[in-house]
Protein backbone atom coordinates (compact mmCIF):
# COMPACT_ATOMS: atom_id res chain seq x y z
CA UNK A 1 0.00 0.00 0.00
CA UNK A 2 1.24 3.41 -0.83
CA UNK A 3 1.86 5.53 2.18
CA UNK A 4 -0.07 8.75 2.36
CA UNK A 5 2.11 11.84 2.37
CA UNK A 6 2.67 12.90 5.94
CA UNK A 7 1.13 16.35 6.19
CA UNK A 8 1.81 17.71 9.62
CA UNK A 9 0.07 20.78 10.86
CA UNK A 10 1.74 22.37 13.85
CA UNK A 11 -0.30 23.17 16.90
CA UNK A 12 0.21 26.88 16.35
CA UNK A 13 -1.39 26.56 12.92
CA UNK A 14 -4.28 24.63 14.40
CA UNK A 15 -4.71 27.33 17.01
CA UNK A 16 -4.71 30.11 14.44
CA UNK A 17 -7.18 28.23 12.27
CA UNK A 18 -9.57 27.58 15.13
CA UNK A 19 -9.29 31.18 16.31
CA UNK A 20 -10.29 32.47 12.88
CA UNK A 21 -13.18 30.00 12.58
CA UNK A 22 -14.46 30.87 16.07
CA UNK A 23 -14.29 34.60 15.50
CA UNK A 24 -16.27 34.17 12.29
CA UNK A 25 -18.77 31.91 14.09
CA UNK A 26 -19.23 34.48 16.86
CA UNK A 27 -19.68 37.21 14.30
CA UNK A 28 -22.37 35.24 12.51
CA UNK A 29 -24.15 34.20 15.70
CA UNK A 30 -24.54 37.86 16.66
CA UNK A 31 -26.98 38.18 13.78
CA UNK A 32 -28.57 34.78 13.41
CA UNK A 33 -28.83 31.51 15.30
CA UNK A 34 -29.56 29.47 12.17
CA UNK A 35 -25.99 28.22 12.07
CA UNK A 36 -26.30 26.27 15.32
CA UNK A 37 -29.53 24.48 14.35
CA UNK A 38 -27.91 21.41 12.71
CA UNK A 39 -25.34 21.25 15.51
CA UNK A 40 -28.11 21.28 18.08
CA UNK A 41 -29.93 18.52 16.27
CA UNK A 42 -26.89 16.26 16.24
CA UNK A 43 -25.95 17.03 19.83
CA UNK A 44 -29.47 16.59 21.14
CA UNK A 45 -29.72 13.08 19.69
CA UNK A 46 -26.78 12.02 21.86
CA UNK A 47 -27.08 14.28 24.86
CA UNK A 48 -30.80 14.50 25.64
CA UNK A 49 -31.40 10.75 26.20
CA UNK A 50 -28.37 10.65 28.50
CA UNK A 51 -29.59 13.65 30.45
CA UNK A 52 -32.99 12.02 30.78
CA UNK A 53 -31.36 8.83 32.02
CA UNK A 54 -29.17 10.56 34.60
CA UNK A 55 -32.16 12.57 35.68
CA UNK A 56 -34.26 9.42 36.11
CA UNK A 57 -31.56 7.84 38.25
CA UNK A 58 -31.29 11.01 40.33
CA UNK A 59 -35.03 11.22 40.86
CA UNK A 60 -35.17 7.52 41.78
CA UNK A 61 -32.36 7.78 44.32
CA UNK A 62 -33.79 10.94 45.78
CA UNK A 63 -37.27 9.46 46.09
CA UNK A 64 -35.87 6.33 47.83
CA UNK A 65 -33.84 8.53 50.15
CA UNK A 66 -36.80 10.66 51.12
CA UNK A 67 -38.97 7.56 51.46
CA UNK A 68 -36.60 6.08 54.02
CA UNK A 69 -36.32 9.35 55.84
CA UNK A 70 -40.01 9.97 55.93
CA UNK A 71 -41.39 6.53 56.66
CA UNK A 72 -42.19 7.01 60.32
CA UNK A 73 -43.53 10.45 59.70
CA UNK A 74 -45.74 9.19 56.89
CA UNK A 75 -47.53 6.57 58.98
CA UNK A 76 -48.29 9.21 61.58
CA UNK A 77 -49.40 11.59 58.89
CA UNK A 78 -51.62 8.90 57.44
CA UNK A 79 -53.73 8.80 60.58
CA UNK A 80 -54.03 12.54 60.61
CA UNK A 81 -54.98 12.59 56.95
CA UNK A 82 -57.74 10.05 57.47
CA UNK A 83 -59.25 12.29 60.09
CA UNK A 84 -58.91 15.20 57.76
CA UNK A 85 -60.59 13.33 54.92
CA UNK A 86 -63.63 12.75 57.10
CA UNK A 87 -63.76 16.41 57.95
CA UNK A 88 -63.23 17.48 54.34
CA UNK A 89 -65.93 15.19 52.98
CA UNK A 90 -68.35 16.90 55.24
CA UNK A 91 -67.09 20.29 54.21
CA UNK A 92 -67.13 19.32 50.57
CA UNK A 93 -70.81 18.51 50.52
CA UNK A 94 -71.47 21.88 52.00
CA UNK A 95 -69.23 23.61 49.49
CA UNK A 96 -70.77 21.90 46.50
CA UNK A 97 -74.00 23.49 47.54
CA UNK A 98 -72.25 26.84 47.54
CA UNK A 99 -70.74 26.06 44.16
CA UNK A 100 -74.14 25.71 42.57
CA UNK A 101 -74.98 29.10 43.85
CA UNK A 102 -71.69 30.52 42.61
CA UNK A 103 -72.17 29.09 39.14
CA UNK A 104 -75.60 30.55 38.95
CA UNK A 105 -74.32 33.94 40.01
CA UNK A 106 -71.37 33.70 37.61
CA UNK A 107 -73.64 32.97 34.73
CA UNK A 108 -75.58 35.98 35.82
CA UNK A 109 -72.50 38.17 35.68
CA UNK A 110 -71.27 36.44 32.55
CA UNK A 111 -67.87 35.93 34.08
CA UNK A 112 -66.07 33.30 32.16
CA UNK A 113 -63.42 31.35 33.94
CA UNK A 114 -60.76 32.97 31.89
CA UNK A 115 -57.48 31.45 32.94
CA UNK A 116 -58.38 27.91 33.90
CA UNK A 117 -58.95 26.77 30.36
CA UNK A 118 -55.53 27.33 28.88
CA UNK A 119 -54.28 24.11 27.35
CA UNK A 120 -51.26 22.80 29.19
CA UNK A 121 -48.79 19.98 28.96
CA UNK A 122 -46.56 18.73 31.76
CA UNK A 123 -42.81 18.38 31.28
CA UNK A 124 -39.83 17.50 33.41
CA UNK A 125 -36.67 19.51 33.95
CA UNK A 126 -33.80 17.34 32.70
CA UNK A 127 -30.81 19.69 32.63
CA UNK A 128 -29.64 23.13 33.60
CA UNK A 129 -27.25 25.59 32.00
CA UNK A 130 -23.65 24.41 32.22
CA UNK A 131 -22.17 27.55 33.76
CA UNK A 132 -23.17 29.48 36.86
CA UNK A 133 -24.31 32.68 35.20
CA UNK A 134 -27.68 32.16 33.62
CA UNK A 135 -30.91 30.66 34.87
CA UNK A 136 -31.83 28.54 31.88
CA UNK A 137 -32.92 24.90 31.79
CA UNK A 138 -33.96 22.10 29.43
CA UNK A 139 -37.26 20.22 29.58
CA UNK A 140 -37.97 16.79 28.12
CA UNK A 141 -40.66 17.81 25.64
CA UNK A 142 -40.22 19.48 22.30
CA UNK A 143 -41.78 20.19 18.95
CA UNK A 144 -43.22 16.68 18.67
CA UNK A 145 -45.34 17.42 21.74
CA UNK A 146 -46.55 20.66 20.20
CA UNK A 147 -44.21 23.01 21.99
CA UNK A 148 -43.16 26.19 20.22
CA UNK A 149 -40.89 29.12 20.94
CA UNK A 150 -42.45 31.86 23.14
CA UNK A 151 -44.83 29.55 24.97
CA UNK A 152 -45.19 30.33 28.67
CA UNK A 153 -44.05 27.92 31.36
CA UNK A 154 -45.64 27.70 34.81
CA UNK A 155 -45.18 25.63 37.98
CA UNK A 156 -46.64 25.66 41.49
CA UNK A 157 -49.31 28.02 40.15
CA UNK A 158 -46.79 30.70 39.21
CA UNK A 159 -44.89 31.87 36.17
CA UNK A 160 -41.55 30.14 35.56
CA UNK A 161 -40.43 31.57 32.24
CA UNK A 162 -40.65 31.32 28.51
CA UNK A 163 -39.51 28.84 25.84
CA UNK A 164 -36.59 30.27 23.89
CA UNK A 165 -35.54 27.30 21.82
CA UNK A 166 -37.19 24.06 20.69
CA UNK A 167 -35.74 20.81 19.41
CA UNK A 168 -37.54 17.62 18.51
CA UNK A 169 -37.61 16.16 22.00
CA UNK A 170 -36.35 18.99 24.16
CA UNK A 171 -37.04 22.66 24.75
CA UNK A 172 -35.03 25.36 26.49
CA UNK A 173 -36.70 27.60 29.04
CA UNK A 174 -35.42 30.97 30.17
CA UNK A 175 -36.67 31.73 33.67
CA UNK A 176 -37.98 35.07 34.90
CA UNK A 177 -35.15 35.27 37.44
CA UNK A 178 -32.53 35.05 34.69
CA UNK A 179 -30.35 38.13 34.66
CA UNK A 180 -31.78 40.91 32.52
CA UNK A 181 -35.00 39.07 31.72
CA UNK A 182 -38.01 41.40 31.67
CA UNK A 183 -41.67 40.54 32.13
CA UNK A 184 -44.46 43.06 31.96
CA UNK A 185 -46.63 42.67 35.06
CA UNK A 186 -49.58 44.32 36.74
CA UNK A 187 -51.17 44.58 40.15
CA UNK A 188 -54.03 42.13 40.30
CA UNK A 189 -56.37 44.50 42.14
CA UNK A 190 -55.84 47.78 40.32
CA UNK A 191 -54.23 46.77 37.04
CA UNK A 192 -51.33 49.18 37.52
CA UNK A 193 -48.50 48.01 35.27
CA UNK A 194 -44.89 47.42 36.20
CA UNK A 195 -41.84 45.51 35.00
CA UNK A 196 -40.40 42.42 36.65
CA UNK A 197 -36.67 42.18 36.03
CA UNK A 198 -34.51 39.21 36.97
CA UNK A 199 -31.11 39.84 38.48
CA UNK A 200 -28.15 37.68 39.37
CA UNK A 201 -27.14 40.08 42.12
CA UNK A 202 -30.35 39.23 44.01
CA UNK A 203 -29.78 35.48 43.79
CA UNK A 204 -29.10 35.07 47.52
CA UNK A 205 -32.29 36.80 48.58
CA UNK A 206 -34.42 34.93 46.04
CA UNK A 207 -36.12 38.16 44.96
CA UNK A 208 -36.31 39.86 41.59
CA UNK A 209 -36.63 43.55 40.82
CA UNK A 210 -40.01 45.20 40.45
CA UNK A 211 -39.73 48.45 38.53
CA UNK A 212 -41.59 51.32 36.89
CA UNK A 213 -44.78 51.65 38.87
CA UNK A 214 -46.27 55.09 38.34
CA UNK A 215 -45.65 57.26 41.37
CA UNK A 216 -49.34 57.55 42.24
CA UNK A 217 -49.82 53.79 42.35
CA UNK A 218 -51.00 52.46 45.66
CA UNK A 219 -49.07 49.32 46.38
CA UNK A 220 -48.24 47.51 49.59
CA UNK A 221 -46.28 44.43 50.65
CA UNK A 222 -47.95 41.17 49.74
CA UNK A 223 -49.96 42.49 46.80
CA UNK A 224 -50.18 40.00 43.96
CA UNK A 225 -48.45 40.68 40.65
CA UNK A 226 -49.71 38.87 37.54
CA UNK A 227 -48.61 38.99 33.91
CA UNK A 228 -50.11 42.06 32.32
CA UNK A 229 -52.62 42.42 29.54
CA UNK A 230 -50.21 44.56 27.51
CA UNK A 231 -47.40 41.98 27.45
CA UNK A 232 -46.61 40.79 23.96
CA UNK A 233 -45.33 37.34 24.86
CA UNK A 234 -46.88 36.35 28.17
CA UNK A 235 -50.53 35.35 28.38
CA UNK A 236 -52.57 37.50 30.72
CA UNK A 237 -53.17 36.81 34.38
CA UNK A 238 -50.46 34.33 35.34
CA UNK A 239 -49.37 34.86 38.92
CA UNK A 240 -45.72 35.97 39.12
CA UNK A 241 -45.30 36.74 42.81
CA UNK A 242 -45.82 39.09 45.72
CA UNK A 243 -44.74 42.68 46.19
CA UNK A 244 -42.06 43.52 48.72
CA UNK A 245 -40.73 46.89 49.85
CA UNK A 246 -41.86 49.18 47.07
CA UNK A 247 -40.63 52.75 47.53
CA UNK A 248 -40.57 55.90 45.44
CA UNK A 249 -37.50 56.23 43.24
CA UNK A 250 -35.12 59.19 43.57
CA UNK A 251 -36.59 60.64 40.37
CA UNK A 252 -40.03 60.96 42.08
CA UNK A 253 -41.71 59.70 38.94
CA UNK A 254 -41.69 55.98 39.46
CA UNK A 255 -41.82 53.46 42.27
CA UNK A 256 -39.81 50.31 42.50
CA UNK A 257 -38.95 47.50 44.87
CA UNK A 258 -38.74 43.75 44.95
CA UNK A 259 -40.93 40.82 44.07
CA UNK A 260 -40.97 37.42 45.76
CA UNK A 261 -41.64 34.83 43.03
CA UNK A 262 -44.22 32.13 43.75
CA UNK A 263 -42.08 29.47 42.14
CA UNK A 264 -39.25 27.76 44.00
CA UNK A 265 -36.61 27.92 41.27
CA UNK A 266 -34.02 25.96 43.27
CA UNK A 267 -36.07 22.79 43.41
CA UNK A 268 -37.91 22.89 40.13
CA UNK A 269 -38.60 19.37 38.83
CA UNK A 270 -41.83 19.49 36.90
CA UNK A 271 -43.31 22.36 34.93
CA UNK A 272 -46.42 22.98 32.86
CA UNK A 273 -46.15 24.50 29.40
CA UNK A 274 -49.13 26.57 28.29
CA UNK A 275 -49.85 25.60 24.71
CA UNK A 276 -51.84 28.75 23.97
CA UNK A 277 -49.68 31.57 22.73
CA UNK A 278 -50.47 35.22 23.00
Amino acid sequence: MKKLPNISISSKQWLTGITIVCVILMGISLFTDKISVPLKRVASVIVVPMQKGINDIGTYVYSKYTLLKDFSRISEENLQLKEEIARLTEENSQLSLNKFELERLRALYDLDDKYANYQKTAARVIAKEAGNWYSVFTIDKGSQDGIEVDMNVIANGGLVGIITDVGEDYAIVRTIIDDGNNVSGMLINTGATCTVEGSLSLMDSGYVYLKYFKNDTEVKDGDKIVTSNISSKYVEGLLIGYVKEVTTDPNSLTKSGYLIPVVDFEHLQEVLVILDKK
Partner: protein
Amino acid sequence: MKRKVCITVLAIVFYCLQTTFCKTIAIASVSPNIMILIPICFGYFKGKNEGIFAGCVTGLLYDVFYTSLLGFSILAFTYVGYIAGLFQKEFDQKRMIIPMIITAVASFSYDFLIYVGGFLLYNKLNAFYYTGRIIIPGMMYTLAAMALLFRPMYYLSGVFEKKDRRKVTEYVSGN
Protein backbone atom coordinates in the same frame (compact mmCIF):
# COMPACT_ATOMS: atom_id res chain seq x y z
CA MET B 1 -7.59 8.23 16.73
CA LYS B 2 -8.81 6.10 19.59
CA ARG B 3 -7.99 8.78 22.08
CA LYS B 4 -9.87 11.34 20.02
CA VAL B 5 -12.96 9.14 20.28
CA CYS B 6 -12.25 8.72 23.98
CA ILE B 7 -12.02 12.49 24.45
CA THR B 8 -15.29 13.02 22.57
CA VAL B 9 -17.11 10.39 24.64
CA LEU B 10 -15.65 11.82 27.83
CA ALA B 11 -16.75 15.31 26.83
CA ILE B 12 -20.32 14.11 26.24
CA VAL B 13 -20.39 12.27 29.57
CA PHE B 14 -18.97 15.27 31.42
CA TYR B 15 -21.44 17.58 29.71
CA CYS B 16 -24.37 15.43 30.80
CA LEU B 17 -23.01 15.24 34.32
CA GLN B 18 -22.39 18.96 34.45
CA THR B 19 -25.93 19.86 33.42
CA THR B 20 -27.55 17.33 35.78
CA PHE B 21 -25.43 15.95 38.61
CA CYS B 22 -23.26 19.01 39.18
CA LYS B 23 -26.36 21.17 39.44
CA THR B 24 -27.62 18.90 42.21
CA ILE B 25 -24.43 19.20 44.24
CA ALA B 26 -24.25 22.97 43.72
CA ILE B 27 -23.36 24.89 46.84
CA ALA B 28 -25.15 28.25 47.09
CA SER B 29 -26.15 27.95 43.42
CA VAL B 30 -22.54 27.61 42.32
CA SER B 31 -21.49 24.36 40.68
CA PRO B 32 -18.07 23.16 39.51
CA ASN B 33 -17.08 23.49 35.88
CA ILE B 34 -15.85 19.97 35.15
CA MET B 35 -15.91 20.51 31.39
CA ILE B 36 -12.88 22.78 31.53
CA LEU B 37 -10.87 19.97 33.15
CA ILE B 38 -10.87 17.93 29.94
CA PRO B 39 -8.72 20.31 27.83
CA ILE B 40 -6.52 21.00 30.86
CA CYS B 41 -5.89 17.32 31.59
CA PHE B 42 -5.39 16.17 28.02
CA GLY B 43 -3.28 19.20 27.19
CA TYR B 44 -1.13 18.67 30.25
CA PHE B 45 -0.80 14.88 29.86
CA LYS B 46 -0.52 14.59 26.11
CA GLY B 47 0.55 17.91 24.69
CA LYS B 48 -0.71 20.89 22.74
CA ASN B 49 -2.48 19.10 19.90
CA GLU B 50 -4.52 16.90 22.22
CA GLY B 51 -5.34 19.94 24.33
CA ILE B 52 -6.55 21.85 21.30
CA PHE B 53 -8.70 18.95 20.16
CA ALA B 54 -10.18 18.42 23.63
CA GLY B 55 -10.84 22.15 23.95
CA CYS B 56 -12.64 22.24 20.61
CA VAL B 57 -14.93 19.33 21.44
CA THR B 58 -15.82 20.43 24.98
CA GLY B 59 -16.23 24.05 23.93
CA LEU B 60 -18.56 23.08 21.12
CA LEU B 61 -20.76 21.06 23.48
CA TYR B 62 -20.68 23.83 26.05
CA ASP B 63 -21.81 26.37 23.48
CA VAL B 64 -24.35 24.46 21.49
CA PHE B 65 -27.41 24.64 23.74
CA TYR B 66 -27.00 27.47 26.17
CA THR B 67 -24.64 30.10 24.78
CA SER B 68 -26.03 32.73 22.47
CA LEU B 69 -22.56 33.48 21.17
CA LEU B 70 -21.57 30.26 19.42
CA GLY B 71 -17.81 29.95 19.29
CA PHE B 72 -16.91 31.76 22.48
CA SER B 73 -16.36 28.68 24.62
CA ILE B 74 -14.73 26.81 21.74
CA LEU B 75 -12.19 29.58 21.48
CA ALA B 76 -11.66 29.86 25.24
CA PHE B 77 -11.35 26.12 25.84
CA THR B 78 -9.03 25.67 22.85
CA TYR B 79 -6.65 28.25 24.28
CA VAL B 80 -6.93 26.57 27.69
CA GLY B 81 -5.97 23.25 26.09
CA TYR B 82 -3.08 24.84 24.19
CA ILE B 83 -1.73 26.62 27.24
CA ALA B 84 -2.02 23.45 29.32
CA GLY B 85 -0.10 21.70 26.53
CA LEU B 86 2.78 24.14 26.91
CA PHE B 87 3.37 22.67 30.37
CA GLN B 88 3.48 19.09 29.19
CA LYS B 89 7.27 18.92 29.54
CA GLU B 90 6.83 19.73 33.24
CA PHE B 91 4.55 16.75 33.59
CA ASP B 92 5.08 14.75 36.73
CA GLN B 93 2.53 12.26 37.88
CA LYS B 94 3.11 13.01 41.53
CA ARG B 95 3.06 16.78 41.43
CA MET B 96 -0.34 18.33 41.10
CA ILE B 97 0.62 21.93 41.67
CA ILE B 98 0.99 22.89 38.00
CA PRO B 99 -2.37 21.54 36.78
CA MET B 100 -4.03 23.10 39.83
CA ILE B 101 -2.58 26.50 38.96
CA ILE B 102 -3.64 26.08 35.31
CA THR B 103 -7.14 25.11 36.46
CA ALA B 104 -7.41 28.11 38.77
CA VAL B 105 -6.23 30.57 36.15
CA ALA B 106 -8.33 29.02 33.37
CA SER B 107 -11.52 28.85 35.43
CA PHE B 108 -11.09 32.39 36.70
CA SER B 109 -10.32 33.89 33.30
CA TYR B 110 -13.12 32.04 31.55
CA ASP B 111 -15.76 33.15 34.04
CA PHE B 112 -14.37 36.67 34.13
CA LEU B 113 -14.66 36.89 30.35
CA ILE B 114 -18.31 35.80 30.61
CA TYR B 115 -18.84 38.50 33.22
CA VAL B 116 -17.31 41.13 30.97
CA GLY B 117 -19.24 40.04 27.89
CA GLY B 118 -22.57 39.25 29.50
CA PHE B 119 -22.78 41.61 32.45
CA LEU B 120 -20.24 44.44 32.44
CA LEU B 121 -21.29 45.48 28.96
CA TYR B 122 -24.89 45.54 30.20
CA ASN B 123 -24.03 48.15 32.82
CA LYS B 124 -23.64 45.72 35.74
CA LEU B 125 -20.51 47.32 37.05
CA ASN B 126 -20.23 45.66 40.44
CA ALA B 127 -17.28 43.48 39.48
CA PHE B 128 -16.36 42.70 43.10
CA TYR B 129 -19.77 41.25 43.83
CA TYR B 130 -19.72 38.95 40.81
CA THR B 131 -16.11 37.97 41.39
CA GLY B 132 -16.71 37.16 45.03
CA ARG B 133 -20.09 35.56 44.63
CA ILE B 134 -19.68 33.49 41.47
CA ILE B 135 -16.22 33.48 39.94
CA ILE B 136 -14.11 32.67 43.03
CA PRO B 137 -16.51 30.08 44.52
CA GLY B 138 -16.83 28.49 41.09
CA MET B 139 -13.04 28.38 40.81
CA MET B 140 -12.65 26.77 44.25
CA TYR B 141 -15.26 24.17 43.44
CA THR B 142 -13.62 23.44 40.09
CA LEU B 143 -10.26 23.06 41.86
CA ALA B 144 -11.81 20.56 44.25
CA ALA B 145 -13.20 18.65 41.28
CA MET B 146 -9.74 18.71 39.66
CA ALA B 147 -8.15 17.31 42.83
CA LEU B 148 -10.65 14.45 42.76
CA LEU B 149 -10.52 13.78 39.02
CA PHE B 150 -6.79 14.20 38.38
CA ARG B 151 -5.91 10.53 38.91
CA PRO B 152 -8.93 9.04 37.10
CA MET B 153 -8.24 11.34 34.16
CA TYR B 154 -4.58 10.35 34.12
CA TYR B 155 -5.60 6.72 34.20
CA LEU B 156 -8.07 7.22 31.34
CA SER B 157 -5.54 8.98 29.14
CA GLY B 158 -3.05 6.19 29.91
CA VAL B 159 -5.40 3.34 29.01
CA PHE B 160 -5.66 4.48 25.44
CA GLU B 161 -2.01 5.35 25.28
CA LYS B 162 -1.07 1.72 26.04
CA LYS B 163 -3.40 0.32 23.44
CA ASP B 164 -2.16 2.73 20.81
CA ARG B 165 1.44 1.85 21.60
CA ARG B 166 0.81 -1.88 21.48
CA LYS B 167 -0.68 -1.50 18.08
CA VAL B 168 2.40 0.36 16.89
CA THR B 169 4.74 -2.34 18.19
CA GLU B 170 2.62 -5.08 16.63
CA TYR B 171 2.74 -3.21 13.37
CA VAL B 172 6.48 -2.81 13.58
CA SER B 173 7.18 -6.42 14.54
CA GLY B 174 4.77 -7.65 11.89
CA ASN B 175 6.82 -6.05 9.21
